[in-house]
């Protein structure tokens, strides 16, 4: 069992948990994820690591309550415990001195981006950050992210704060970048990759296909990258954003939506 030591509501339906898991904390690196299971009848579901404190032995995760499992998780309180917490899984983000780097994060993944930015900053990079969300209420961690940004742009889908939409990125790309990384909704990662392509900026995405084990056993997480089928959990989750087949990825991610709706309806009922 893995105890919850801190719980914060960061935005509507968005929660941060700090969880005691010393062995995981000792090994966690930016870009990696954990797989959780809340109770004996629960499913295994992945969440990206948003921070880790090896001294305290804790791991931080930030998640959106979108369906049954994430909503159940959100109902847990400090001193409650999570049944299974397996990680760190997947490959870590490549951290080195690239030079000028563009970091684009969306929605709840702003926390995971911040964890990456801390390491990239330490490695001596100059960071231009773009943080987006649905609307003003859903923007999270802006002040912390500002601390690690040389330049920061904030954007919302509805324009309620900062820029409206993501297409203003075009103007920013006129500045020369050595590397771009993005993490957030798949459609956003796809658009960012499409926009950096003409500029020839190497772009890394962090993908979230459906997963079960997270260790390469099932192939549920397969994505087409270039001409190859890759398992996101062991070959990724980071890939060359210019080579990913997003249509297939987005289509596959929706496979269980009818089942998940049933689960959520029944769950809401009780």
């Amino acid at each position, binding site marked *: 069992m893995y105890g919850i030591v801190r719980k914060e509501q960061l935005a509507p339906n968005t929660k941060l948990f700090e969880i005691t898991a010393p062995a995981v904390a000792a*090994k966690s690196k930016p870009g990696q994820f954990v797989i959780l299971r809340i109770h004996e009848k629960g499913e*295994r579901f992945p969440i990206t690591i948003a921070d880790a404190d090896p001294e305290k032995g804790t791991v931080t995760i930030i998640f959106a309550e979108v369906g049954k499992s994430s909503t159940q998780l959100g109902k847990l309180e400090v001193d409650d415990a999570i049944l299974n917490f397996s990680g760190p899984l997947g490959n870590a983000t490549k951290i080195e001195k690239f030079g000028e780097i563009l970091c684009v994060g969306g929605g709840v993944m702003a926390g995971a981006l911040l964890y990456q930015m801390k390491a990239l900053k330490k490695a001596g990079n100059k960071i231009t950050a773009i943080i987006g969300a649905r609307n003003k209420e859903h923007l999270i961690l802006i002040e912390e992210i500002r601390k690690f940004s040389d330049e920061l742009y904030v954007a919302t889908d509805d324009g309620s704060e900062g820029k409206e939409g993501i297409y203003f990125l075009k103007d920013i790309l006129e500045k020369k970048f050595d590397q771009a990384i993005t993490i957030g909704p798949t459609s956003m990662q796809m658009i960012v990759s499409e926009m950096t392509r003409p500029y020839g900026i190497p772009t890394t995405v962090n993908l979230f296909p459906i997963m079960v*084990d997270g260790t390469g056993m099932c192939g549920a997480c*397969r994505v087409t990258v270039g001409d190859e089928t890759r398992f996101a959990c062991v070959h990724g989750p980071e890939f060359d954003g210019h080579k990913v087949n997003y249509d297939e990825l987005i*289509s596959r991610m929706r496979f269980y939506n009818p089942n998940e709706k049933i689960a959520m309806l029944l769950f809401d009922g009780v």
Partner: protein
Amino acid sequence: MTIAHKKPQTEMPKQSIEKRIHNFDEVALGFDEELALEEASRCLNCPKPQCKKGCPVEVPIPEFIQLVKEHRFGEAASKIKEKNALPAVCGRVCPQEEQCQKFCVLGVRGDPVGIGRLERFTSDWERLNVKTKAQKIEQTGGRVAIVGSGPAGLTVAADLAKLGHRVTIFESLHTAGGVLMYGIPQFRLPKEIVQTEVEYVKSLGVELRLDSTVGLLSTIQELKQNGYDAVFIGSGAGLPNFLKIPGENLKGIYSANEFLIRTNLMKAYKFPEYDTPIRVSKKVGVVGAGNVAMDSARCALRLGAERVYIIYRRSRDEMPARAEEAENAEEEGIEFMLLTNPVRFIGNDRGFLEKIECVKQQLSEPDKSGRRRPEPIVGSNFTIEIDTAVVAIGQSPNPIIQQTTEGLEATRHGTIVVNEETMQTSILGVYAGGDVVSGAATVISAMGAGKKAAKAIHEHIMTKKAA
């Protein structure tokens, strides 16, 4: 007095076909005392028992059967456990027809003794009637780390714990048991039974750490540095192979591993009581004809499919599944499409699987070795309407450990290279066995490898301590 051994093998009751295809309860129901005594009475208690030759873990077969004859069922169970830590599992899933029973002298003229069925009866009797208690064993001070809690890892753990070593098992998943939990379906091997066997291993003092993927959490080197005298790798062959034909990433196509993990480990057949979903529609095609394919097909049927096909590129004689499993599948209405090779999957505009295109095959003239190879018949392509496909064409070892362990020698196929006598790898003090060494094989061969490794590890530690 009738001559017992001349009678045919005692039949084991099974659930009726009509009933069993709608539930996940065990198909074979096991012997009651009367049937067990009847079958045990057939054994001749041979002075030179041939059956033992066929058992990779050397179960004292006539000895335990003799105890059954004497109604001493609990002692019979203990007798088996001297050599085999997982008898309730082996009694159910071992291919006895190719092992102990193949060598039984009664098999020359008639039916061999139903050794597997008696092993199953004995261990089931013990589970229902005897409480396992924690055992006190004198400690040697040796510490051993085991990677993976499948039959190989559990066997090494049990054997070394009995010898007084402190053993910790690191398991990547949230449950111990390996394929016994995530692969083999409930209706062949109830998960409660696997967990009782795991509890027995724990009762010997073995510590179990779940959620621990070695290589990512700690590496093999780190385990050695952290005071383990030896490490055993029993990480299995968990990486699914795909066909690599067009359309394989359409929605509705599962690897057998995903299909079985969702169904068995995550209990998707009880969705939404359990949270993990699975989508099985009316027509299911399973590619492959091994035990894994048969299990997938029979699960699909129980999940509500109306038609289930086994699609296999060779002929019946080459099917790798146990004959008994293929018969069970056929009895339940699974349709076999043999000499049929898939060439592509076809989907609709929303990315859902609709059809599989196959080509008919014929067997070639025998080649020099006498083997007849299947070859495609040009122009014989046809399609089968299916909305779910399960690819069951084999598994390879998961590469995580091989990739994170410097100096660990592995083959091109990803299996770990060992000294066959000691199961030691290219690294001193690091051993391996089971599917990760042999490639996908059987429960009992994994246990046999585990026994060899345990013996070598014990000697390694005792020599080290003496020095």
